[in-house]
């Protein structure tokens, strides 16, 4: 066959296959939104779930997911930031550093179910936290640390070396250079990394079913004392998240309207992730514009 003919044929074949793939994936996305969005209403978002009847909402699950993201971020961001600062600013090239990098990478590649089981073993049983938000947050922290550390390190590396040198040349300590010059410069990257990893934490389920648990006790949204057992802020209560809820209503099949609830919940999950992604993009865009000025 002549090369020109092969070229035309190959191009058409590639576009055809890619088109089919793209359509399939878009159909998947459209299906989720079309079947899910009609179920999403203020009532659905704000009323509690029901165990055996239809008409339940996802208030508690939604709150638990968001609260868990906040708790996880509170623990993992400072830790990952310090670790990233070490790797980016202080680490010298030697075996120890290589071993630490390897450890972080391996941790990041572990299946979330394995990390969930480790959390069950250590936080839930060993530390006696039982199924609780705290145990869930700690497990999500382990899951999140490698991703955050890597994205923070990338963000720090984006800051030009010259800026660091200028600071050092003024007689500033390296730590000061890092906190006063490098961190502000890396902030957009750091925020983007945080938001994207928050999206992942928000949708995680496998690591949570044996750590944060699969049920939510009745909580009082007016009780702001985090140490009170009935408070919605109490980190020691079990908490079922949105993603776990989808899994649970489908595998137990006790709720008559499991389809409706899961369709709605899936749509809420996706829209939240979409919002996280858009927010990350928006920040990137705003920062780019600021630098362009």
């Amino acid at each position, binding site marked *: 066959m002549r*090369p020109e003919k092969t070229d035309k044929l190959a191009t058409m074949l590639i576009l055809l296959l890619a088109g089919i793939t793209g359509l399939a994936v878009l159909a998947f996305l459209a299906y989720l939104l079309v079947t899910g969005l009609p179920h999403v209403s203020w009532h659905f978002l704000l009323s509690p779930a029901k165990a055996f009847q239809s008409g339940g909402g996802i208030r508690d699950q939604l709150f638990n997911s968001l609260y868990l993201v906040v708790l996880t971020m509170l623990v993992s961001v400072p830790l990952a930031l310090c670790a990233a600062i070490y790797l980016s600013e202080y680490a010298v090239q030697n075996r120890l550093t290589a071993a630490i990098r390897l450890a972080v990478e391996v941790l990041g*590649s572990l299946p979330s179910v394995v990390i969930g089981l480790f959390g069950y073993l250590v936080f839930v049983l060993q530390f006696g936290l039982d199924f609780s938000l705290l145990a869930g947050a700690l497990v999500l922290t382990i899951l999140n640390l490698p991703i955050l550390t890597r994205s923070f390190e990338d963000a720090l590396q984006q800051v030009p070396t010259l800026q660091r040198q200028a600071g050092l040349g003024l007689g500033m300590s390296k730590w000061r250079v890092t906190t006063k010059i490098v961190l502000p410069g890396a902030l957009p990257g750091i925020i983007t990394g945080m938001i994207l990893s928050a999206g992942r934490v928000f949708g995680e389920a496998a690591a949570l079913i044996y750590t944060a648990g699969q049920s939510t006790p009745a909580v009082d949204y007016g009780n702001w004392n985090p140490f009170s057992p009935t408070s919605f802020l109490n980190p020691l209560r079990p908490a079922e998240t949105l993603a776990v809820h989808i899994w649970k209503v489908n595998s137990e099949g006790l709720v008559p309207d499991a389809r409706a609830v899961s369709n709605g919940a899936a749509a809420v999950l996706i829209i939240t992730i979409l919002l996280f992604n858009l927010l990350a993009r928006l920040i990137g865009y705003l920062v780019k514009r600021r630098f362009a000025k």
Partner: protein
Amino acid sequence: MDELNQSFKPKPTVAFRRKKTTDRLLAPSVETRQEWGGKLVSCLAILLIGGLVVTLFAFLINKGLALFTTDKFSLGAFLTSTDWRPSHHHYGALPMIATSFAVTVLAGVLALPLALVSAIAITELLPNWVYRVLQPVIELLVGIPSVVYGYVGLTVIVPQLGRMFGGTGFGILAATCVLFLMILPTMTSMTIDNLRQVPQQYRLASAGLGATRWQTISRVVVPSAKSGILTAMVFGMARAFGEALAVQMVIGNAAIMPTCLLSSSATLTSVLTTGIGNTVMGTASNNALWSLALLLLLMSLAFNLLLRVISRKGVR
């Protein structure tokens, strides 16, 4: 230039400054303390992460070996027997191992060509605005929680397979479809990144020699991104191997040796998710589950090693 002379008064005498300087040059200062503090804090953080990894491995290895040390079950039987009946003290993990590999390999093999053609179409054939429009969509798909993929598998793919081939629809094929859908966006976006990294000069040089676009793609662009494309595939497969809930929802969860793509089976992860809550800590049947977890851990290490080998080859 006389602005200098009007405004600038001479500094304190050199002798005065010198004495002060001499003492100060050797003594520690605020900056010294800052530096120590900063180093300490960041070092502690990284050591904590390192310690965490070590602890994680120690715990899982310890628990995972209990079946063989405490309960005296033979490692050979665990890896080669097809009989998994914890109630009868039969802990043959081969059905799960085989199923896990089957779904992973099938999903990977299915996803690789489609991810590759999609990436080629987006980077090489279609105008740039398509990429700009699709990139956020792909990012969204990458970020969709696996439970959602599993849920769609359960409500759409499983019934559809049941209608098409008869039976329940649960099984390896359903799990493959779900995992394929789940890893496709990740693999496509990684492949796109790799193709875009191929220098534009290569394409120009090849075109300059009279090559057609397809010749350029198949002989220059794809070969020079080969290791990256392979990395994307292994990365996707590693994710598929470790996926728990999405698979558990569609595979049927029968811990028997898979005989066909449409019969109920169980993977390492699905047995773990269903089993851990239903067994008592410390019993042999519970320990057997931890052995499966250890197996999962070792496999993800193996995938990690494979990725390293591929990327190192790519550098050369």
